[in-house]
């Protein structure tokens, strides 16, 4: 427990130190562009693939489980939309990203730690927190963009599976999509997404930064980082949901 509080304290000190002395703008800009490439662009493929197919499966499952003929078929579209926007795209994809982006961040910073590259930066007088973590945070501010794509492809996947599989008609599905749309749900989803993005950028950085040991420990740190990042996302999710939706 004391260990845990120590970690939390060190995590916030890390964030504070990150903002103390800024890296030269020219250098920072290049770093941010590289992080966007590494963290955002390179995740588009896997996110699209997963969203499309999970969207399809969610829609088919809903359709199959609605055996009662009294239930209108347009509910399939409605359920798909709600699932995708409220939970699947923001939360589920973020947990997948904790595995992909998170372990990438931990292992790349961790490798720099064990090969003394972080020490080398520090000796030169670089604010290593700012140099290594800040660009990741900025890059992750466009993470909601990935989630928009995931929502869209998830719903499209649902539509595609239902219409081609003969579970609903085109009109039924579209009617369902338009049913009872609450704009606040989108706000809720994006507030969540933004908070998850900050978690995804900082917790894995922390685990990389403060790891000790050699190459083997880099692997272990990535695993620990994945566990804690997912836990943080889940806790943040229930917290935000309680705060905004109830």
């Amino acid at each position, binding site marked *: 427990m004391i260990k845990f509080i120590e970690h939390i304290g060190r995590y916030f000190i890390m964030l504070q130190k990150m903002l103390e002395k800024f890296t030269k703008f020219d250098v920072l800009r290049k770093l941010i562009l590289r992080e966007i490439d590494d963290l955002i662009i390179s995740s588009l493929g896997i996110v699209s693939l997963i969203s499309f197919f999970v969207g399809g499966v969610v829609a088919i499952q809903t359709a199959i489980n609605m055996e009662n003929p009294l239930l209108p078929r347009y509910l399939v579209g409605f359920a798909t939309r709600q699932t995708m926007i409220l939970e699947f795209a923001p939360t589920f994809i973020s947990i997948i990203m904790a595995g992909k982006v998170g372990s990438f961040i931990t292992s790349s910073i961790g490798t720099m730690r064990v090969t003394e590259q972080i*020490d080398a930066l520090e000796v030169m*007088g670089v604010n290593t927190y700012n140099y290594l973590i800040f660009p990741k945070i900025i890059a992750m501010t466009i993470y909601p963009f990935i989630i928009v794509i995931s929502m869209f492809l998830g719903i499209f996947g649902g539509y595609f599976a239902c219409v081609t599989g003969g579970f609903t008609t085109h009109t039924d599905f579209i009617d369902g999509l338009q049913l009872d749309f609450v704009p606040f749900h989108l706000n809720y989803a994006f507030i969540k997404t933004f908070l998850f993005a900050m978690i995804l950028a900082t917790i894995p950085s922390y685990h990389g930064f403060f790891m000790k040991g050699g190459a083997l420990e880099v692997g272990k740190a990535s695993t620990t980082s994945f566990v804690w990042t997912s836990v943080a996302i889940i806790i943040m999710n229930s917290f935000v949901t309680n705060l905004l939706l109830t």
Partner: protein
Amino acid sequence: MIEVTKLSKKFNDTYVLKEVSTNFEKGKTNLIIGESGSGKTVFLKCILGLFSPASGEIIYNKTPLSKMSSKERTMLRKDMGMVFQGSALFDSMTVEENIMFPMKMFTNDHIDEIRDRANIVIKRVNLINANKKFPSEISGGMKKRVAIARAIIMYPNYLFCDEPNSGLDPNTAILIDNLIQEITKEYQITTVINTHDMNSVMEIGEKIIFLESGEKKWEGTNKDIFNTDNKSISNFVYSSELFKKVRKIYVKENK
């Protein structure tokens, strides 16, 4: 000139450095020797300010490190170069980018000027045809050269090298040692080198500090080492038969 007074460092209640005092002069190659685990790297990192000591003081040109403001520390950092045990090159950058990095980071010089300066130090360390290569594509000896070039591009007053020739063949090791010594003389740098290589001790040991389990057990020059009857250092130096013979001959010749 760097003065170290009664420097101690502990990790979780075990002392790895115990009250080490010494000083390092300008324009000299100062060596820290000792067995693996004797505390050389920790000592160097304390001097650099990467570790904060449990007690004791490190004084750079009359200013104690612990009394420096963060601005003064940053200024000092720009005046230091460090060659790490494993070279610590940035793997995401080419050789040339690695060497130019400190200048890009801390000066507003035009890229052409920076490149010119990089080429001067690249030539100085005899790196040929490696500018566009990545660290993973060059040999260990070349990595050391890149690390030295990166350490001296800002023309620092202090140069620190952690085992600059470990993992190199004897010829390359001597070349790297001599390179460091020449640079030290040429730019009048205060150089501190960690090593456990007896060849380095003999070649460039203008001042030698011997550490054993975190304590300074001996201090002197490479000439003194043959004449001392200090037990600890004799055990370290004459662990090889070759050096026992060298000592016999040396003592005979100098009678």
